């Protein structure tokens, strides 16, 4: 297993980094300010943890699927899953994103001692993501609301270990969920036990922190409350009402690493949560593993969530959107690999990538 | 007592690392010699005056006249080393098959070793090469002895004690003590005198 120098060569210097944060904190050589994550000094270690947990180094994703989602029916568009639901909180909370499902699931996990703490991203600033460990309800509420700037929140896993936590819930982007599975899959034999219940978010992309500079220079006198991305629009909620930001402008701030992503719905998570597009105030929830199912059931039993059947046309749309993200991602990966700007982190000749590439090239003259 | 030296000029090199008191040691020695009536020249080489860099003093003693501040290659009669690899460096360039060497085996690690890019050689290997290069080689744990006596930083004075005891050096122990008392007072003088005597005893027969 290679080390920090290879990580730098293959991931950090090639813009492949997804800013999941898994490599940070244990290592004194890797450091970030905002979304700049670099090897600040040369690392002499030949076999490094960093390389083994990074979702952008070559991985046998099929083997990982088989380990953690063995008996779950596999779907090539949205990953292995049991059921998809339409969900929302019965009692709304302030600042909740869409249906407030994530906050509710976290609270449920804590209340039922399924976990000792949760790793979430939030802060007093509605735009800036700060990861932190919490075990109290009011701390979870603070994290309510999505933030679209990338945060390397998995850096906090180390802190959880140091605090002696053995069971942790983590809310993460798809790349972070991938890293969490790799952390467990590749962990050394003598590593202290850390059982992670993963709540994966839906994600199309995340933004570079230079977006904040853009907002500060474009709207210098406004206070930002939160950001939302309903279909085909980007809304900025400010103290002077809602500002519409052109989608193209926002897209110019997408992190380069996001363009290689093939996972829209956090396919490796225990349970995945995203916005329910047809109707505001609801979430789409994909139950994957038994633990995910258990979590949702407990929230249902406690009368915290309203859980409804998922409309089939919306499922088709969801699967289509996820499929399209894979097509785009693979196209970007293949192009970058051909131009020798990227070391592939997936085996392009394996399923389902091979099929998707073949299908797309037939359609578009790839 | 005759002024005549066994060799004229008598060439002594005192070498080590910056911060070990190399310059003070050579200055004390040379002052004692001038007091005794000898012409003494001391040449210092200390790079960018930085702690941790190589330092060497060339001390040239004559009953007849003032010599230049640098000893020609291969012409050092005595080498006193405060540090092992510095001693070897100096011996290779300025030593010959008759040179007498006394050195402290306590390493002072260069940056290249600290960062793991170079390996500090074994002291036995250094002694072995020195024995091939020079006439006689003696290891003297000056820092350890000085530390036991009360101050590791006084290793330089201890080595001057050892040097003074060598037959080639036309000084008695009291000559050096006089110079010490001119510069140090009270506890500092006592410690330096004690450490000097300790070094002298290591060599005197």
């Amino acid at each position: 297993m290679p080390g920090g120098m290879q990580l730098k060569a293959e991931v950090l210097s090639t813009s492949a980094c997804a800013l999941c944060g898994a490599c940070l904190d244990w290592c004194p050589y890797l450091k970030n300010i905002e979304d700049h994550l670099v090897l600040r000094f040369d690392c002499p270690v030949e076999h490094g943890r960093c390389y083994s947990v990074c979702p952008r180094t070559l991985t046998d994703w099929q083997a990982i699927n088989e380990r953690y989602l063995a008996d779950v029916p596999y779907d090539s568009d949205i990953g292995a899953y049991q059921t998809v639901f339409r969900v929302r909180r019965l009692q709304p909370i302030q600042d909740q994103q869409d249906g407030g499902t994530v906050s509710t699931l976290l609270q449920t996990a804590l209340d039922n001692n399924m976990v000792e703490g949760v790793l979430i991203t939030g802060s007093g600033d509605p735009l800036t993501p700060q990861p932190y460990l919490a075990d109290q309800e009011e701390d979870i509420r603070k994290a309510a609301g999505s933030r679209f700037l990338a945060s390397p929140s998995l850096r906090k896993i180390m802190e959880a270990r140091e605090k002696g936590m053995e069971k942790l819930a983590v809310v993460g982007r798809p790349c972070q969920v991938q890293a969490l599975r790799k952390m467990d899959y590749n962990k050394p034999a003598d590593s202290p036990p850390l059982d992670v219940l993963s709540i994966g978010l839906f994600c199309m992309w995340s933004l570079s922190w230079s977006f904040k500079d853009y907002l500060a220079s474009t709207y210098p006198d406004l206070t930002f409350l939160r950001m939302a991305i309903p279909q085909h629009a980007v809304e900025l909620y400010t103290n002077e009402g809602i500002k519409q930001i052109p989608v193209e402008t926002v897209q110019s701030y997408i992190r380069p690493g996001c363009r290689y992503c093939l996972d829209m719905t956090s396919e490796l998570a225990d349970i995945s949560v995203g916005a329910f597009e047809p109707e505001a105030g609801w979430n789409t929830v994909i139950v994957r593993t038994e633990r995910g199912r258990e979590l949702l059931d407990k929230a249902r039993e406690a009368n915290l969530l309203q859980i409804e059947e998922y409309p089939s046309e919306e499922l088709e749309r969801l699967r289509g959107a996820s499929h399209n993200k894979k097509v785009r991602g693979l196209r970007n990966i293949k192009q970058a690999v051909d131009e020798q700007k990227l070391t592939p982190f997936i085996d392009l000749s394996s399923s389902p990538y091979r099929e998707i590439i073949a299908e797309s090239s037939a359609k578009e003259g790839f | 007592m005759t002024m005549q030296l066994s060799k004229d000029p008598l060439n002594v090199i005192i070498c080590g690392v910056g911060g070990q008191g190399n310059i003070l040691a050579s200055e004390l020695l040379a002052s004692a010699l001038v007091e005794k009536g000898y012409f003494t020249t001391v040449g210092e080489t200390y790079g960018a005056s930085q702690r941790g860099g190589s330092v060497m003093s060339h001390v040239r003693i004559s009953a007849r006249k003032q010599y230049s501040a640098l000893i020609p290659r291969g012409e050092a009669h005595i080498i006193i080393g405060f540090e092992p690899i510095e001693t070897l460096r100096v011996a290779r360039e300025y030593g010959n098959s008759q040179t007498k060497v006394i050195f402290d085996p306590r390493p002072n690690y260069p940056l290249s070793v600290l960062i793991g890019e170079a390996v500090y050689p074994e002291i036995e290997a250094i002694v072995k090469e020195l024995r091939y290069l020079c006439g006689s080689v003696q290891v003297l744990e000056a820092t350890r002895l000085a530390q036991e006596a009360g101050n590791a930083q006084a290793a330089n004075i201890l080595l001057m004690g050892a040097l003074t005891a060598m037959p080639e050096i036309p000084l008695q122990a009291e000559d050096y003590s006089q110079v010490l008392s001119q510069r140090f007072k009270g506890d500092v003088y006592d410690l330096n005198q004690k450490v000097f005597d300790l070094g002298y005893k290591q060599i005197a027969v």
Partner: protein
Amino acid sequence: MEWMVTVNEPGKTFLMQGNEAIVRGALEAGVRFAAAYPGSPSSEILTMLGHVADEMNLYAEWSTNENCAFQACMGASFGGVRALCVVKQNGLLTIGDALHTAALSGCKGGVVLLTADDPNAHSSTNEFDSRHQARAAGIPLLEPATFQEAKDMIVYGFELSEKIGQVVMVRSVTRICHGRGNVTLGELPESPSSPVPIGEWDKLIAINWFHDVLWAKLDQAQELFEESPFNWYSGPEQPELLIITSGTGWLYSVEAVETLGLEDKVGILKLGCTWPLPEKLVLKYLCKSPRVLVVEEVDPFLEQNVANIIAHNPGLNVQLYGRYKKSALPQSFELNPDVVLNALATLMDITYQSSKTGEVPAEAVVNIPPRDLTFCAGCPHRASFFLLKQTLRIHEGNGVVMGDIGCYTMGGQRAGHFLLHSLACMGAGINMGEGLGQLTRFGFNQPVLALAGDSTFFHSCLPGLVNARYHDSNMLFVILDNSATAMTGFQPHPGIPVNCMGQPANAMSIEKIVEAIGCPVTVADPYEIEATTQVVYDLIKKPGMKVLILRQPCATLAVRSKGRRKVWVDPELCRGDNCGCGRFCSKTWGCPGNIWNNQTGKAEIDEVVCVGCGVCASLCPAGAIKVEGGEA
């Protein structure tokens, strides 16, 4: 030793350092005023004069730069007292205009300009021959060959200076300044020179009309040099080879002749007065030998002036050898006995064999690791360079760093992670940065940083700062304030409230000056590595001229006043070679206090070297380095 320079025991012989001998010479000459800027190998001179100023009733100052120093000496000279200005080779170039105009105006009280060259650049960026400046400016030049002459020539120099009314240069080199040898003391005057009132018609003006006067003074000096006790010949009546030599070349030549047994074949003409050359004396000996070897440091200055004499005396049949075109000696680097021995042996067709060491079999040859220069344990520059390097890497903008002269110059090497991109002379950092920072308008978008120390700031950065602010260059000027002129030995500068004579001085605040000039200024502590990294990161994202002061006293000074805290490594926690460390403290942080134990495979602290700053403890990824005790 200091007490040696003030003791009133004429005829007593001591072991003195060359710089001490110069101080003694100044005191014997009744110097009342001394000014200098620190520069190796000359720094000890003014330091010592400062220490004895009170006792000897004289004034000494570390001027803000050499220009201030030299012209202050001219001012004092105008007031009738004898003034000594001390510069190193690079400082001599700083006073170029001042020196030439001073030579034109002449002086009243004697002025001796002691310039210290550094052949081989042991403590300098370059090796440089100051003697050219004496000739260029048109002032007499003396070169001591021994420690005794280092003292005696100062006395002679002041007498000469007052006799002809001209500044006199005495040129020393590292081997004299920092070497030690026998010096016999002369007499100290009753009291040093006293001020003389300046009348309405007393002038000290440089106008070109005096150019002929300047030549006349040189002619006068030349006459005196013909009889000077510093020039003499020793050797056979008709030498086969004549060595003409000055400065340190003399002792090397004497030793070479003695070692090769050539006393009856080779003669040595030693010159202590080398501009203007005592031509009659030189001619006298040039006539006696068909071959001449000139031995000198650094350039073939003497050699080319002798060649000039030969050219004007076509009857002579002389073959000249020396450093010019490497005809006998190398053209660069320091002389030593071996170089001169080999040159002489070659010219006299003898083989010279130095004594040899015993043979060492190949397998016994030890691989000696090199000893790179590094910052002292606890040096704040180590912290500054570490955080600047990591900030630029994290910023990912290919920041460019312009360096300057001081301890921090070493940051351009491994100890500072090779941070510096450029290096020239004092004040170059900010000026080069200003220029580069103007290229943003042409598409240059890399962050520009310039460094300077606190002493360098006062010495030469003030005009640069004004310039950069006035033109609003896109750059970050980082002042590394360790409260000392550390590289040369902790001399005070205008930011330090005590001067070289131990008296209170009107120290000034760097940030107030910067604010007054109009630059936004931030002050941060380099020991707080992570917090200060964020400060630098935020600053380099902003446009325009910005100043950051990284302030933390020099560790060597701090230890003297505060004592050391104990620092140690808990081996249970130390990760050593493993992933998550990789010897981060000794390998990447690189402080000489952080050492590695090969037997245990753990990091350790070298107690003899560690000063207790505690920065390594803040960097250890395992929290294995502990700090306790002493003052924070």
